[in-house]
């Protein structure tokens, strides 16, 4: 399981990049969901959001999950690429499959990579 150390992580399996303001879901989350077939982004560019708010909904062949904002801020960009190719979440969760980008995002209550690794390992089945 990949867990880049430059990112911050939410217990609900989202990542936040303090450097770029990008938000996505983790490698662990995509592996639990398995093959993602649908992504819907629930927020719009220009919208102010607070950490904990649902920002996206993803569906795999067998599961469905709400994605929550790991940080607060103004949505500067929504990634249409991942909406068009949901399978990117499986292949590149920390790269091409970012969901939204925040302008001046303030992280919520987030973990660093080692804490997240330990937390997700305890939830793996």
């Amino acid at each position: 399981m990949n867990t880049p150390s430059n990112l911050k992580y939410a217990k609900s399996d989202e990542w936040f990049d303090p450097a770029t303001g990008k938000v996505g879901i983790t490698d662990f989350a995509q592996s639990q969901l398995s093959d993602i077939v649908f992504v819907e982004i629930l927020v719009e560019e220009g919208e102010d959001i607070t950490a904990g708010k649902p920002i996206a909904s993803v569906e795999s062949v067998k599961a469905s999950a709400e994605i929550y904002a790991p940080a607060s801020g103004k949505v500067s960009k929504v990634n249409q690429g991942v909406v068009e190719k949901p399978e990117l979440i499986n292949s590149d969760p920390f790269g091409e499959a970012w969901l939204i980008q925040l302008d001046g995002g303030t992280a919520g209550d987030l973990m660093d990579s080692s804490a997240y690794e330990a937390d997700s390992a305890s939830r793996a089945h």
Partner: protein
Amino acid sequence: MATIIEPTIFELSSAGRRGVRMPASDVPVVDSLPQHLLRSELPLPEIAEVDVVRHYVNLSKLNYSVDSGFYPLGSCTMKYNPKINEDTCRYPGFLFSHPLQPIETVQGNLALMYELQEWLKEISGFAGVTLQPAAGAHGEYTGVLMMAAYHKLRGDSKRIKMLIPDAAHGTNPASVGMMGMQVVTIPSDDRGNVDLKALEAACDDTVVGMMLTNPNTLGMFDENVEKVISLIHGCGGLMYGDGANLNALLGIVRPGDLGFDVMHFNLHKTFSVPHGGGGPGCGPVGVSKTLLDFLPTPLVGILEEGNDEEAPFYGFVTPPNSIGRMKAFHGHFGGGMVRAYTYIAMHGPDGLKDIAQYAVLNANYLQAKVRGHYKIPFDRICMHEFVAEGRFEGSDVRALDVSKRLMDYGFHPPTNYFPLIVPEALMIEPTETENKDTLDKFADALIKIAEEAKTQPELLHNAPSTTKFGRMDEVKAARELVLCCWLPENVELN
């Protein structure tokens, strides 16, 4: 290109072929509609009757069904569907009556509906029954709407939470979601009952009510059901019963007597209406006195009492605070009500009790046979079904593999991965219409598969191997989304 086992009806089509013909018109010809209102083409198949028959017969042979074998799909009550039902529901008086005919011309239909309402009331202990809902989920929505209307009429606007046990069917929270209410999940305790402590903590004046399946989806009758109901009533909430598992309770206990305020029936489970490959169902709803005035419209009532010589005169009535209409017309009369009526009429009070007793006996017998070979997380006397875990120490075999392997032994698999609170769940409901030999063979197959899981797991991973089709690529289906056989992008794919 993929191998084609049976062509689609479109692939069987050939321009100029004819099936059933219509007679020539016997009225003078009139002008057609203006061109701009007419469709330019009608892209539907052209095919001869014999080929239509062969196509559908071929398709039918690709199905497993109750008529062909044991179908222990948990929570679905796949019992034998008596053949007489198929005759009675097609009697011309039923088949050819229009739903908007004047009531004096359809007294037979109305008498049947009235009696069925009365019978369901008697069986369940409720004060009123609507026959209108089309299926179980539709009945649930009906019930949730009535619960909301009850609180609204009392001006009790704070109530927005519905308590739902973690073992519940997905339709329960979905019905609540449609009403914009919040779902509060209540855990189960280690005996498979509702966790009373958690329930107590959740009970306050924001609670609409609780939706409880009893027996629950673990097949357990909640040992504290009266306490659960009194907690809900104590905080001003209403108690919804999901009647999916009513087969276990016929003549055993009446949900209305236990204090439930509302419950849906699944006539296609409990009362032998066939499942039809996914419907139609029929989901009447019973209510206690508390909710009587909120039932959907219309109900069948007696407009003029009968006497020794004259039958009563039946018609439609609307309850004073009715939530309104749940569907067009009166519900699934022909396909649902007539069959269920026939079935209940052929059982009587003792016959109904037999159903529940033998359904429960069969489930407990199977449970006893497979105990020791499969982990049974909630191991006590079950009701009409039980849940086992399809996983084994030191093996990567999963419930899905067990299920697929069962097909190789000629059985329909149990329900998989439900309830969600049991890992690798196999939910097994034999029903009362299976004999001991079948149950023994099924248990033997399950036991053999448990052995194979340890010794030859690849047999399970590669199963089914003896059926016409192997496992499907579900990812491809969801990603490529070919949903029609006629779209241009489809043609490219082939």
